[in-house]
């Protein structure tokens, strides 16, 4: 009797322990694979969003190219535009590297003619028109970056915020060149 119950109870203990071990292993497997698929899904999600940002930078680079060669700008304004274009090239390079690091294929640029058509460059008649277009694009880009930060993985939050900072700087200079008043209210972007 006592022998039997001992065997029984130790068997139960063994089964119970195995059961626990098994479920812990199973749990680890499930959690592990979830973490893995979540990480893979987040990487491909980040690639998609970062590629849209690369497309935005390609367009910005092209816009300054079109502006600089339009013959509509004072030489001093061309200089500023070329400097801003350099910033956009810097952004593009950082974003391309990020997409490649994640194992993605960076978005390619379109032809200059395609950008000119997309941006209705043929409707630009003078320097003010060009500055207004540049301001709209830069302001839009600053807002765009701020709005996409929460959708990106945390590794890229700071990068996106840095881009937004540069675009906001450009927008401020352009708004000033156009003689626009300084906004009274705080939180101008985002």
């Amino acid at each position, binding site marked *: 009797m006592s022998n039997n119950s001992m065997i029984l109870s130790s068997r139960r203990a063994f089964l119970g322990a195995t059961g626990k071990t098994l479920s812990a292993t199973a749990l680890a497997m499930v959690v592990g694979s979830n973490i893995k698929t979540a990480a893979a*899904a987040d990487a*491909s*999600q980040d690639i*998609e*969003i970062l*590629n*849209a940002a690369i*497309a*935005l930078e390609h*367009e910005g680079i092209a816009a300054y190219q079109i502006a600089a060669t339009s013959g509509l700008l004072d030489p001093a304004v061309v200089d500023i535009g070329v400097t801003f274009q350099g910033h956009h090239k810097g952004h593009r390079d950082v974003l391309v590297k990020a997409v490649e690091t994640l194992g993605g294929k960076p978005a390619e640029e379109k032809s200059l003619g395609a950008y000119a*058509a*997309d*941006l*209705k460059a*043929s*409707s630009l008649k003078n320097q003010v028109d060009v500055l207004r277009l540049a301001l*709209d*694009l830069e*302001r*839009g*880009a*600053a*807002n*765009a970056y701020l*709005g*996409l930060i*929460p*959708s*990106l993985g945390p590794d890229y939050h700071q990068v996106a915020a840095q881009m937004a900072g540069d675009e906001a700087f450009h927008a401020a200079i352009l708004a000033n060149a156009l003689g626009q008043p300084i906004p009274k209210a705080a939180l101008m972007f985002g």
Partner: protein
Amino acid sequence: MKKLSNVILCFSVVLISSSVVAKDSVNSSGREITQVTSQGDSVPPYAVSEQLVVKGEELYKRRCGGCHSLDNNRIGPRHRDVYGRKAGTVADYKYSKALRNLDVIWTDQTLDEWLVNPTAFAKGTSMGFRLKKADERHAIIEYLKFLSSASSANAQ
């Protein structure tokens, strides 16, 4: 040549429609108008609030204009007539797989959910931009709706 004239045509339509909006809004600011009557909101032409459309146009430029235009594909697809249309169906725009496979018609409700959090609405989409403020979403959706109704009127 044909493409260029199309662009010019579209551009003048934009100019005309925006100046119409601007003028009317001065005459009847604050009044809810029914631009055209319809059976509810699901069939064009849609009923829109003029005041909201004016606000929505300005917000659209600031919030969406970095990536979208009405008549040209840019970072995102062109937007004229997007309201009431099936998602992912602008022919010459290269959508993500997520949006191509999204079985959704763009309405007040689906657009609102999308703008709150596009990657939750269509996981894997390339649009990461979220618009947090409900009143801004409301005005922009009204503007997109107006453009769809304006186009359906123009199309005749």
